């Protein structure tokens, strides 16, 4: 009986933590539990949610990606640059002026290509994901600086800005986008063969290989999806700011890893869920928002966030030891 209670506690740790935080903040702040603040939190977490969804797949498959923040910046910069300046094809004396749709596709493809490169390096050269994605972190940051010249690309127009600042049926567009991605990834992980393979590879890569699963292809797919989702996050950030900042997304990889871990996904792979990551993002978002409303210094917010991450990992370690 006691074990059952403990199992339930471990299983619903994120939900319990989130509920307790919401209850406490509702009592401490008059403005916390209002619809406006609720939408505000959802809008604020949408970028981290996009990144964390990709990170969830990667961590579930037993990997890690330290380059998502840099890929976010590169994707946003590529989309903004193509939309603002187009591409001159000098030999033909023409210029390709990208539409908003074209810029979005280019941004997503950039993210996917960077992610695919990560996967290729990891599977072909057997590099530890930590090292391979650290390399991509530097490559993507450098490419972003080269593409932008170190300056922000601004004035992208209201059509593109709608992605980040628009509201559809009373719901902010970033919330629509991240919500749709959550739905798609829940289906992917729970209802598709590819989703089950991700768990299998992360749970025991050697066993997955011996049972005939195309482990390399699965890893390649997972990192490509991670890059694609980082690209989507880059588009939202760029559209929200109406500007592609060369140093956008600095430190975002750590926030996304934190959200995944707080959401109960095991860092050793094979265990966790997309819904858990959504809860992890909500916990971080509510924590940031609540501490801000309570006038707690941003420096203390970082300290608190650090302790929350440590607690989440410690609980994960204890529960995996027991099982």
């Amino acid at each position, binding site marked *: 009986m006691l074990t059952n209670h403990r199992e339930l506690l471990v299983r619903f740790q994120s939900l319990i933590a989130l509920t307790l935080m919401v209850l406490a903040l509702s009592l401490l702040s008059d403005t916390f539990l209002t619809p406006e603040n609720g939408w505000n939190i959802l809008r604020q977490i949408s970028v981290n949610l996009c990144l964390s969804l990709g990170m969830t797949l990667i961590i579930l498959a037993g990997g890690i990606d330290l380059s998502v923040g840099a890929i976010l910046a590169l994707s946003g910069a590529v989309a903004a640059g193509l939309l603002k300046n187009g591409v001159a094809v000098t030999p033909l004396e*023409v210029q390709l*002026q990208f*539409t908003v*749709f074209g810029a979005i596709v280019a941004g997503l493809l950039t993210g996917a290509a960077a992610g695919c490169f990560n996967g290729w390096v990891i599977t072909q050269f057997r590099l530890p994901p930590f090292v391979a994605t650290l390399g991509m972190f530097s490559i993507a940051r450098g490419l972003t600086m080269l593409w932008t010249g170190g*300056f922000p690309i*601004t004035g992208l127009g209201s059509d593109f800005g709608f992605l980040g600042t628009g509201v559809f049926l009373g719901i902010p567009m970033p919330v629509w986008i991240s919500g749709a991605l959550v739905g798609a990834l829940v289906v992917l992980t729970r209802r598709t063969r590819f989703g089950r393979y991700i768990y299998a590879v992360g749970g025991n890569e050697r066993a997955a290989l011996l049972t005939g699963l195309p482990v390399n292809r699965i890893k390649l797919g997972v990192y490509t999806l991670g890059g694609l989702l980082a690209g989507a996050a880059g588009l939202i950030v760029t559209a929200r700011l109406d500007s592609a900042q060369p140093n956008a997304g600095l430190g975002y990889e750590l926030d996304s890893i934190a959200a995944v871990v707080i959401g109960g996904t095991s860092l050793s792979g094979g265990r966790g869920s997309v819904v858990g990551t959504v809860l992890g993002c909500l916990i971080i978002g509510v924590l940031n928002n609540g501490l801000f409303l309570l006038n707690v210094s941003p420096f203390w917010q970082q300290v608190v966030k650090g302790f929350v991450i440590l607690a989440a990992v410690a609980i994960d370690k204890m529960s995996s030891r027991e099982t």
Partner: protein
Amino acid sequence: MAGRRRWITGTTAAAGTAVLLYFLPLFHVVPLEQAGQRAAAAAYDPVAFVERFWTGQLIPGAARAVDAAELVAAVQQDRQLARETHGRRVGLGGAYYYFIAGSGRVVAVDRNSVGLALCDDQQQVQVLLEAGPIFGNAVRDGTGLLDVNDFANSQDFNALAAEINRRIEQQVLPALRTGAVIGATVRFVGCAEILDEDTDLSPLRIVPFLVETP
């Protein structure tokens, strides 16, 4: 059978993509020359902007400036009240600005400034008109005619300050330097940036953008 199905799937996907791209093209192809003309027209040009701003807003806006003698008297009486009544603060910084017009008698001249006394019986320098190289954002931020939110980025906004200062140096200050002789009356419109009340208010240091000398 599997090959046939794959062929059908591939063809359907290609046709779907083609239809999608027909209605939602990724890009338009335009001649390079036409694209260059469009880009030039859309590009931000601080020189052209300041040219329009100068004649269209800045000179007509001089009517809004507070009288220098009135301001000096107000500052002498109560700095805080003068700041609240006539001053203008931008952002969260400690600096604030005055938009000032007036006339005074030249009582001191050096390489980089012209000192004015505002009343006939006064021999002390009450206002110091900058006459050397101009730095800072006094005129850009002091008039209240320009809003940073109307600009795409801070570089554009900073370029504006640099261009206003350059224009003052080239078009306003030469006349001030030649016309400012001891005893002459100088009419001016300009802005003062107050960073430190103890040093910047007495005398009041003004960057003039309009100067009339005898």
